């Protein structure tokens, strides 16, 4: 049962899938365009005799000298979203004191509010690594089952990975979240916690 104060994504799933797909497409296209511009700029400076960067070119240079691939940018978007969303979801529940309680909260209430269902499997090796398994993850639920589109599906997990990382950060746990897929639509998130001893 989703917490009453937060509408689950099931009601608004359709528009989110469209928006998410467009965001991914935008970042990939921007990345390609930047790569092309960078290559073109390097070519033109190599061939010209005056190898100084003109003042007018400096802005252009700064613009695509910054490297950052689509995955990291989309994951950063998800971080901010997760940070805010967990504040709303964790509002009326009793205190979460232990790390395990926080992980269980993420896997049940937060996952329900953010991704429409609860997690199917949670495992830990008791050394700061948790493996969260969802057997029908909603961003890749509409892709073909099996192993046909593994590479293409990877980018569709960047945003949710950021959401989980942002949620954990707001609860006071610094972490690194890596999504992995073996067969669609079963998705596993490897959560590495940074323990401050």
């Amino acid at each position, binding site marked *: 049962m989703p917490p009453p104060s937060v509408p689950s994504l099931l009601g608004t799933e359709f528009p989110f899938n469209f928006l998410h797909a467009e965001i991914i497409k935008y970042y990939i296209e921007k990345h390609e365009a930047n790569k092309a511009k960078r290559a073109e700029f390097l070519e033109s400076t190599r061939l010209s005799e005056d190898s100084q960067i003109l003042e007018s070119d400096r802005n252009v240079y700064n613009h695509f000298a910054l490297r950052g691939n689509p995955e990291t940018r989309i994951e950063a978007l998800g971080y*901010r979203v997760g*940070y*805010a*969303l967990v*504040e709303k979801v964790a*509002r009326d529940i009793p*205190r979460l*004191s232990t790390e395990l309680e926080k992980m269980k909260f993420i896997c049940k209430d937060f996952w329900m509010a953010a991704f429409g269902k609860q997690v199917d499997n949670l495992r830990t090796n008791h050394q700061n690594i948790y493996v969260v398994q969802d057997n029908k993850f909603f961003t890749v639920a509409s892709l073909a089952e099996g192993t046909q589109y593994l590479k293409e599906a990877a980018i569709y997990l960047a945003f949710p990975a950021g959401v989980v990382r942002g949620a954990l950060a707001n609860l*006071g746990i610094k972490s690194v979240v890596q999504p992995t897929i073996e067969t669609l639509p079963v998705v596993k998130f490897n959560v590495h916690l940074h323990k401050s001893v």
Partner: protein
Amino acid sequence: MLLCISILAADQPPLYFRCIPCDASRENDLRLFVYSSLDVFDEKATSSRPDQELFLGSLFLNNKFKSYGYLTNTQIKFLAVIDATNPTLKEQDLRALFKKVHQGYSAAICNPFYELGTPIQSRALNALVDNRVD
């Protein structure tokens, strides 16, 4: 009578501080009082209870302040200071007040233009203090 509300997060400058209109020296006393109440927060944090309250009957310039605290799951501290000389506000009122502050805070966080860690500017939160003074 409610004197001020403050929102603080760990390791950051205060996110929010709003007191009733009064002169600067009283406001400074209130700020000092809020910061001294933070120590008691850490003490109470180790004894596990869902909502936390604290009583500090310190004397500041012949005025008595009482402060109440509330710690969210996301390690954000809310503090409310009331005038201890006329205790018109009861514990129940303060619990309801903190619920409203929590709602206002989560709404402010959800604002996409709000940068995390910077001071919060929210009319809803300001209204909470302003409407209490009557």
